[in-house]
């Protein structure tokens, strides 16, 4: 690791001010950033630690509207009793991110802002039509995730919360990369008042995306059987040591079926 200046922010405003100097990075768990710094692949001049800002933590539920503070760790999402009753798919997703150490450090805001193409949360937020709230504005998930590790966030902009209306039904299934255990293909399905939305993570060569053929098939019948015999194109899917685009295309359909089965309980 290169030497770096560490700053602990006590409020979002505080953090935003700190970020004005140097080549600063926000730290919200550091599950990606710290390993990258340790291997000298990332070299920010300043680290601004958001994890001690109390206003960023916690889950509030109002009717079917859920708001999760950006600093909420995965473990707290996974084990939140009221959220589990309302949206078990999201708790299931959170309970399968990384390992226990990651789930007690990593945060939803950190995950969303990093937008790793194999991260779990982006698929849920995209499928549920969530809104990402920052210290400057509100951004629809659709517009937020723009590419590999790319988001709509401006320089110095801080994710403060995500909010969504819980869909009528939702489910998540992922096939982990055997080595990293990140999603090699993860599919989140949501059936809400605006219809069925299917978001795929871990497979797209430009990050999380919605699968139109799957949404069309499930719009007719929200049943795993509706996906029998269906195939999705392998264009624009990632190919690497662990999975070819064709294999990922297969996994998208298989995981979608499993997600629908989970959604239908």
């Amino acid at each position: 690791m290169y030497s770096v200046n560490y700053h602990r922010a006590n409020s979002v405003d505080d953090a935003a001010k700190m970020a004005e100097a140097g080549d600063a990075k926000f730290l919200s768990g550091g599950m990606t950033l710290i390993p990258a710094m340790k291997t000298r692949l990332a070299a920010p001049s300043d680290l601004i630690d958001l994890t001690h800002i109390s206003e960023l933590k916690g889950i509030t539920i109002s009717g079917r509207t859920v708001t999760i503070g950006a600093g909420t760790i995965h473990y707290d999402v996974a084990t939140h009793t009221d959220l589990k009753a309302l949206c078990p798919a999201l708790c299931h997703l959170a309970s399968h991110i990384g390992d226990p150490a990651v789930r007690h450090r990593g945060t939803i805001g950190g995950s969303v802002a990093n937008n790793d193409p194999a991260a779990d949360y982006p698929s849920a937020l995209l499928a549920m039509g969530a809104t990402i709230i920052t210290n400057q504005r509100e951004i629809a998930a659709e517009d937020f995730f723009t590419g590999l590790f790319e988001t709509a966030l401006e320089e110095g902009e801080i994710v403060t919360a995500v909010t969504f209306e819980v869909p009528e039904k939702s489910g998540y299934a992922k096939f982990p990369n055997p080595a990293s255990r990140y999603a090699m293909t993860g599919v989140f399905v949501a059936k809400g008042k605006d219809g069925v939305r299917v978001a795929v993570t871990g497979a797209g060569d430009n990050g999380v995306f919605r699968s139109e053929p799957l949404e069309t098939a499930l719009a007719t019948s929200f049943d795993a059987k509706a996906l029998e015999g269906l195939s999705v194109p392998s264009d624009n899917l990632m190919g690497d040591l662990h999975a070819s685009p064709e294999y990922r295309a297969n996994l998208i359909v298989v995981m979608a079926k499993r997600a629908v089965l989970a959604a239908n309980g």
Partner: protein
Amino acid sequence: MGIEGIGARVVRKEDKRFITGGGRYVDDMVVPGMKHAAFVRSPYAHAEIENIDLTKAKGMPGVIGILTGKELKADGIGNLICGWMIHSKDGTPMKMGAWSPLAIDKVRYVGDAVLIVVADTKGQARDAAEAVEITYKELDAVTEAVDALKPGAPQVHAESDDNLIFDWEIGDGPATDAAIAKAAHVTKVKIHNNRLVPNAMEPRAALGQYDKAEDHYTCWTTSQNPHVARLVMSAFYNVAPENKLRVIAPDVGGGFGSKIYIYPEEIVCLWASKKTGVPVKWVADRTESFLTDAHGRDHVSEVQMAFDADNRIIGLKVDTIANLGAYMSLFSSAVPTYLYATLLSGQYAIPAIHGNVRTVYTNTAPVDAYRGAGRPEATYLLERTMEIAARELGVSPAELRRKNFVTSFPHQTPVIMCYDAGDYGASLDAAMAASDYAGFERRRAEAKARGKLRGIGMSCYIEACGIAPSQAVGSLGAGVGLWESAEVRVNAVGTIEVLTGSHSHGQGHETTFAQLVSDRFGLPMEQVSIIHGDTDKVQMGMGTYGSRSGAVGMSAIVKALDKVEAKAKKIAAHMLEADESDIVIEDGALKVAGTDKTIPWFQLALAAYTAHNLPQGMEPGLKEGAFYDPSNFTFPAGCYICEVEIDPDTGKTAIVQFVAADDFGNIINPMIVEGQVHGGLAQGIGQALLEGTSYDAASGQLVTASYMDYTMPRADDLPSFVVSTTVTPCPGNPLGIKGCGEAGAIGSPPAVMNAITDALGHEDITMPATPHKVWAAAMKH
């Protein structure tokens, strides 16, 4: 057997310090004035070094020194060598390419060490290392052995114009060809044995300290064999004479073979300590481990197994190409030859065998012994072939094996080895019973109803441990003898220190060796200490690898204990006025058998050291040493049965049952043996399902250089193992033990792959059988 003696499940004495953070590893060592090193390594697989500019780096904060290969050479430090001479079948010696500890003109793999930077802190050393400016002229690289042999392939070393190191053979070619020609059936198989990264939990490390006043060096290093390290660094690398070089291998966090060898870093740290005047410590990061620890396996073989009309094997022909990487590591030549092809007879009576092995340079990390070292390669090849043969012949894989088992001993194979004892049928029966082999088809049908592909596969392995009779290995080209040493020091009040030439890096010697002593004299284990790993404390020894510490290391201890016992009995007989032959040792006392005359052990020890009343002419003291040279290898064997269930939708393979029935001869501590089997199985299953080392063919970059891409087995990849043992004592050593450290890694890969191919219904898949490959294979047929 007492509660702490031979055969008892004694909890490991060393574990408390390991699991409470009390272990002392090389990185825990701090000496006054110590500074830190970073190595500048080649970013290219193959390149000429055109220019090195240190101007900027030398001005970096904290820099003490930056040293080059030219300076190293000028100071007379020698090239790294391979210590086992192999001759090609035409009589020419192997073509060993020069391996300078720091590359001088040319780099040959990604990670090849070029410079050492010494600075006040580790961070400063790395910063300065990044500031070094080296101009390379990149050359074409070759990573696969088969490609390296093709005409026009990039030439890795000047010493071999075709990248061929040697072309070696064993056995009887004409007799084997004749057997194949007259066979009723010939099974032909192409075998890939995948390359593996060892992944010891503790990365390699070295701390070199030069004492100017004494003109003496101390090297703390992660070694499985500190005396061999001293010998080689002294005799071949000219670091210092043996009496001026102390090598200490303290607690070492796993080796699996990769810490046998002497690497550039420990040599360079010692030399750099003298050059810079400060002690120099280097600790590999995980990336350096991936890039530069000697890798394992990487064979491509073609096999022909010939059967007569009665399904008896009449001949076996094997043609193997082995990738040895960019340089010949210390024992790299022995692994694909005498540790591999000498086991091509397996558990079977095969009248004619011919093995041909070509070893090849490529622009990849050096390849050497890795848990099993040659025996996994032989076992995988044979046991895949046997299973395929049974399928082709339409007979039970179990019965085809049983029909061909060696059943009388000693059995001389056509490939040097002479098996001393075993009961292969007993292991097969035990494994088949434990796995309910007979009930498999019912389980397959049940799985099919759930949409799953279920398969079963077995592997009957034999391996050679307890390496090795010195004269025999010497005649085959080894540069060292492979005996072991021990010294038993009984202190004046009866506590005992055992100094062993073996080295423990996870095996539990502090427990098992103490059990042996405790058993012999009826003393509590707390009174016995096992000392190892320091050339200033322990007499010359050969270290730990090839499951030799029990069969060879403990045998040396037994010999020393015999001498101690003989002297103690003489003293007791004198003091008790009895005949020496009437003295027995039990429950911590020497007694005159059949009487109440007794001397407690501590009193006997005290008498030996006060020397007030010893037999006429006897020297005071009670301390004996011994060297033990084995008369043969030992031959652990067993049968493993694996049952898998494949999800054809995703290609994910679940191991639903794994049965291991081993014959390790007599067992000192069953708990430790089971732990060794579990660990070996995890590595073997890792090889079969998960672990694949991948170099980019065009650039020679290691693609699997971190745990993001290299799949280590995790607990949830593995089932609960069903392990058991049968016993045929080894007739060759005093304890009748064979060794258990590698069996799991040797026997399991073919069992897993036989199960997967059984489930798939075809043989068209290689290790590691990742979900992607299994899915594609399931689609194919």
